[in-house]
């Protein structure tokens, strides 16, 4: 297990190194020149060049990359050109808020989605199954921004029950913090639920037909034990993988939802950086999102091992 984790961490470092090169090259290729942006629209060429020299932009790309990467390894993500502040604190704050959103939304999706999936599998072909399928398809078929707008209209504008946007730090009290999360979380859940429920249902149906489930029934185990102890653990493998991918998605890829609810997470930060051509901020944000994705997948694989002792065994041998 330890050897396996070590191996995976080595691969993870390699992936991030490759990613950092790609991120650096892509952002360099973006239109716009950092020095002239800092100098302003009307600056003379001399001023622009001076800034470029000061920032090291006259150096070859390899050297620039080396300096950037070395900074990251020291924990220095650079300075934002637009905000004129160190990037690290800004990024950490956005990341923390995205993490809160991701963890809460995923917890709800996991519990509700797996529950509905199991229910549909056990009641396969019956009304419950069809209802679960219908509702979850509705969630996935209608675009997320539509749900977001509907929710804002109903709970915010019309019923005035919940804030329609923004974020309150938990320091302001639990209720304000939680109330700001409700609508974005519901939107995310509607978006992600169908996949988890459908996936759990189909893998649960497969597992319910296995010989060990038949044997558990032949031992006279009550149906609840058969389903929860014997079937569910084995049926969860594909679900775990998809949950990990969804986690990465919420961390960096839900710009639309963050925008509608004015939720200051990683998605909006990235959008802001791209719109303002803030190259160091773009680079740092993408890198952190990539790292979060990789870590989420590593967690999924380690969870696999927890659920499936055969994989655990393979790791021991590795």
């Amino acid at each position: 297990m330890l050897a396996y984790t070590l191996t995976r961490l080595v691969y993870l470092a390699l992936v991030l190194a490759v990613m950092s090169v790609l991120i650096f090259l892509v952002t360099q290729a973006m239109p716009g020149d950092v020095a002239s942006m800092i100098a302003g629209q009307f600056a003379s060429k001399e001023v622009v060049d001076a800034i470029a020299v000061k920032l090291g932009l006259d150096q070859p790309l390899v050297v620039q990359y080396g300096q950037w990467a070395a900074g990251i390894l020291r924990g220095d993500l650079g300075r934002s050109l637009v905000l004129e502040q160190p990037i690290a604190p800004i990024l950490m704050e956005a990341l923390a808020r995205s993490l809160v959103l991701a963890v809460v939304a995923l917890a709800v999706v996991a519990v509700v989605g797996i529950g509905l999936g199991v229910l549909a599998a056990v009641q396969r072909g019956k009304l419950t199954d069809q209802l679960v399928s219908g509702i979850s398809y509705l969630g996935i078929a209608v675009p997320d921004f539509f749900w977001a707008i509907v929710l804002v209209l109903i709970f915010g504008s019309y019923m005035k029950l919940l804030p329609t946007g923004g974020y309150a730090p938990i320091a302001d009290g639990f209720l304000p913090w939680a109330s700001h999360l409700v609508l974005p979380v519901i939107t995310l859940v509607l978006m992600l639920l169908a996949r988890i429920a459908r996936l759990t249902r189909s893998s649960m149906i497969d597992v319910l037909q296995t010989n060990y489930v038949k044997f558990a029934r032949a031992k006279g185990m009550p149906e609840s034990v058969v389903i929860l102890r014997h079937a569910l653990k084995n049926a969860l493998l594909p679900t775990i993988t998809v949950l990990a991918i969804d986690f990465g998605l919420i961390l960096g890829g839900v710009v639309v939802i963050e925008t509608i609810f004015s939720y200051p997470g990683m998605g909006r930060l990235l959008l802001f950086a791209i719109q303002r051509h803030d190259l160091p901020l773009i680079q740092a944000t993408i890198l952190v999102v990539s790292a979060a994705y990789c870590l989420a997948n590593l967690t999924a694989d380690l969870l696999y091992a927890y659920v499936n002792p055969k994989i655990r065994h393979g790791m021991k041998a590795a």
Partner: protein
Amino acid sequence: MMTAPQARPAVAPVTVTAPAPEPAPLLDVRGLTISYGNARGTLRAASDVGFAIRPGEVMGLVGESGSGKSTIAMAILDLLGGGGRVDSGEILFDGVDLRRLPAAERRALRGDRIAAVFQDPFTSLNPALTVGRQIAEPLIQHKSLSPRQAAARVLDLLAEVGIRDPRRVTAAYPHELSGGMQQRALIATALGCEPKLLILDEPTTALDVTVEARIIDLLAKLCDSHGLSALFVSHNLGIVNRICQTVTVLYGGLVVETGPTGRVLSRPAHPYSKGLVAALPRITAGRRHRLPSIPGTVAKLSGPPAACVFAPRCPFAEETCRSQPQAMLTDAAGDGVRCWKADALAGTPWPDEESAARKPAPQAPAQPTAPLVEVDHLRKVYGANRSILPWLRRAGTVAVEDVSFTVGRGEVVGVVGESGSGKSTIGRALLALTEPSAGTVLFDGTDLTRQVKQGDQDLRRRAQLVFQNSAASLNPRKTVGDAMDRPLVLAGRADAEERRKTVAGLLTRVGLPSAYADRYPHELSGGERQRVNIARALATDPDFVVCDEAVSALDVSVQANILNLLAELRDEMGLSYLFITHDIAVVSHIADRVLVVYGGTICEEGPTGRVLRPPYHPYTEALLSAVPRLAEDGQEAPRILLEDAAPTPGGQGCAFAARCPRKLGAICDEQAPPVHRADDGHRIACHIPLATLAERAAVFPELVGDAAH
């Protein structure tokens, strides 16, 4: 009740007075009718099935796949799935009709008073739970033991089923145990609550013969010592002969014969039973001998039968058989047979294949010509890893260790061994489907690996493969014709019309109507699919075919059929086969020479007749002694039971040393065994001197009389 055309009881009609007071049966199944229904119609899986099992009795329920035997077992357990339902009948257990009990009470009986062991131990244990916990579950559920008490009982149970280190096994996950150990764990689970009835559904079918022999012995011993009754579902008559006191033969969901095992297997009354007994491959040194087989496929009923269900496949059928359903005829002893001709046919054996007697046995191929395939010091290691990360480096697992042999032109070489012996790897190496780690494979004088690397497709054309799983080796979305067309296209046959004719010809060649080209694989039976696989292998006109367990998944009746076909094709087309199997009886029918492999090494090799007679390698002797036999085949010799231990390939000593019942001592572990050679190519790799090996009595004394080699 159905009526026979001429109600002629086998001996005398059942009279009201029973001959002797008998204990009431523990399980009494009466008039059980089960059907599977879906949108396309209903299938009758069991029609008016009745049988009784007395306390302490083991009854065999036999028949081909599709005969309804597992369905009946599942109905008793109330575990019919997939739309199956019991339409009528009674299942009396200890005098109580189980069908009248509420579901919760039936569940409470399961695992407590009626326990079950199923076919496939590899999938019957939950991969995510420890073995100990799974064995303890019914104890906690039914006997209200605390987890601690249950754990203690589990250790006793595991010891009782012959597991030497119960503590390790309790803590293990299923994948850490061998198949034999897993099946023992399942038997321990079934025994836990001291049930009265065991339902055993093909409990040894997925196991190696040597393991099977031990598990059957264990089951027989346990039934005896616990006074257990059992329903033993099996397609293997040899196994039934070993453990069952009575037998019920099932065909098309109907009971066609019942009686004491010895009588039914030695003097079967129903034509179907005769066919099943005749088709069982027995050890014979006579190659070129055709096996009797039952033509056709199992009947599928949708309602009450309108004629004798077996008539379409019965060689004795008359007009009346095809127009009138058959009634069960019961004699005074309680034996039953569902055939009005049973009396007339008493003593008439199942007919041999008509061509068998007349066809002169073709001469064995002349040996002096250069062999077609030469394997020289073949070695294959899987999973070796030379990673830059030190903790990932691995030496790998040796699958094949220093194997050398040849296959002559027109020769059939059998490779016998259990799972993990490396026999499939040898087959794959001969087709260049896996690259040898060391050694060479010469095909018709050229180095196979090098040729294939250079893109030589001609070798691919000349060497073909037939797999075990007939369904999985055909693409379900392609018709039979398309599947067979592909190799022809790859072989460069451009004319579509000509290819179509070739496909039709090949189908006819393997005994299928040419119209089958338009069918999809799921529309064929297992035997028909295997014929298609053989036809596809023949499409490129090969010289050499590797049959990897090609008949293992088939019913005996069909197995005999396919073996005959393979033998015929060899005679007519001069094909060479490498025939890989775990079943030494099958090999004895088709192979000219046999390699016995264990742990990746050849422990014995020679002409089939020589390998089946002493002197034996100790492993060959154990394999032969594990072959299940019918009573009529002679007295059962004491069996050699092997320990459950993994082979140790790639080590210094003999791979078989860990399990060898005749192990000499440290020399077996430390030194590679010397090879005793005879002039006729017979060789045995063993530390025991040849003279000592020759002293052993023959496992099949009836073979010794045959002319030696």
